[in-house]
């Protein structure tokens, strides 16, 4: 690998992370809230914004693919659909509502000083590392429940061209999005300083995902690094145990980046590899973006007087989200912003699974965690 390619990869991730963190903080772009509020309060505005993001990403990535700017398609690290995607998505949905933010929301909120998100982050590392203990059993289950071997996208399953499948999806999704646009259903009235309308944020994030795909070759991903962080901490206290776990010695992430003329290889183990090269700057950037945004508004503050049930909820939600992100595999950012716009079946199942998980999470949160608030 040349030094130039590494630098471009790391800097691209860092810049994308910073912009995404800043934009998400300014627009309250909380994907956990989008799902939770759908069931808890019957509020749909932010879910409509998510639909706009997916639509924008569909159009952008399909246009870039047609131009030949996306040589690796479907993106590396996606596989055929399995029951594990659905179950992982459901557990992830439950966890993210309990944690008060998804894997990206936790980061930008942590950057703005939110203590519950710091607990959720600790939980994410623990949950990701915990998965290694039963990876073998879960992998066998996942492999056994694959129902379209060798097929990754809906287009491959239906044996039609990607262009035809995406055009149909753009048409189907475009009708309600156009209606919402014309009726002003994307606009939120906020009194928050420096507020960025979420629909604008969704277009910026769609562009960031497309840039990541073009330059690095994959959409935004975070959670393998949580497993790396977790295994690194575990390695400090139980190095023998980490060496014994097959999951931490695997290097499943491998592909060649034609644009930069380099090859990536990495895995969830504690060592520094190309997962770290791509994801660490993105994670740092998301935290930094939240910090820069909140500090520039004079809103950065760490409030320590948080009710204990909420701290426990944050930690538990983080553990479940970390576990689910390994079981699914991967997270909402990877699937909803990366896989869904190109109609990856794993991502569609993950998205379907999120809904009952978020519904149950909302019930648990309002009925137990916040009952005596």
């Amino acid at each position: 690998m040349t030094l130039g390619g590494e630098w471009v990869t790391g800097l691209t991730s860092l810049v994308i992370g910073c912009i995404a963190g800043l934009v998400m903080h300014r627009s309250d772009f909380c994907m956990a809230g989008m799902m939770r509020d759908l069931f808890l309060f019957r509020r749909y505005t932010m879910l409509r914004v998510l639909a706009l993001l997916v639509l924008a990403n569909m159009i952008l990535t399909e246009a870039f693919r047609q131009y030949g700017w996306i040589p690796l398609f479907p993106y590396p690290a996606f596989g055929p659909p399995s029951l594990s995607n659905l179950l992982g998505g459901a557990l992830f949905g439950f966890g993210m509502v309990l944690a008060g933010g998804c894997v990206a929301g936790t980061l930008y909120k942590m950057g703005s000083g939110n203590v519950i998100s710091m607990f959720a982050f600790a939980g994410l590392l623990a949950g990701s590392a915990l998965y290694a203990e039963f990876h073998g059993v879960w992998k066998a289950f996942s492999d056994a429940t694959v129902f379209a071997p060798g097929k990754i996208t809906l287009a491959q399953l239906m044996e039609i061209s990607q262009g035809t499948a995406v055009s149909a999806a753009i048409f189907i999704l475009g009708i309600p999005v156009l209606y919402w646009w014309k009726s002003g259903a994307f606009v939120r009235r906020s009194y928050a300083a420096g507020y960025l309308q979420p629909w604008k944020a969704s277009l910026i994030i769609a562009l960031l995902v497309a840039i990541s795909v073009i330059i690095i070759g994959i959409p935004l991903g975070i959670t393998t690094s949580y497993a790396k962080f977790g295994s690194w901490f575990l390695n400090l206290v139980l190095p023998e145990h980490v060496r014994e776990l097959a999951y931490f010695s695997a290097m499943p992430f491998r592909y060649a980046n034609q644009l930069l003329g380099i090859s990536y290889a990495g895995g969830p183990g504690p060592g520094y590899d190309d997962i770290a090269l791509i994801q660490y700057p993105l994670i740092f950037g998301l935290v930094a973006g939240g910090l820069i945004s909140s500090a520039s508004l004079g809103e950065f503050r760490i409030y320590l007087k948080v009710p204990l049930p909420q701290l426990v909820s944050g930690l538990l939600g983080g553990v479940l989200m970390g576990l689910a992100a390994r079981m699914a595999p991967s997270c909402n950012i990877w699937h909803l912003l990366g896989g869904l716009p190109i109609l990856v079946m794993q991502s569609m199942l993950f998205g379907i699974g999120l809904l009952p998980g978020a519904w149950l999470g909302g019930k648990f949160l309002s009925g137990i965690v916040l009952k005596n608030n």
Partner: protein
Amino acid sequence: MGNMDIKEIDMRGQICPSTFITALREINLNKNEIKSEALKLVFITDNRDSTVTIPETAENMGYGTTVTKEEHHYRIEIFSARQ
């Protein structure tokens, strides 16, 4: 107006929907006092999203609202719409 009580609830640092759920509960518990202009509710929050959700819902329920930024947080007031 002169004898109006003010109930202030500090919810800074709390998990995302906590502010909204608590606000909704307090509004419903004190609806008669608020409508008769005997009480004003004040919520202190650092949750930016609450500046969207709480005023929107309270106004839909027929109450008056104001939102003010104070140093590191926001102050949301709920009162009778007749005020």
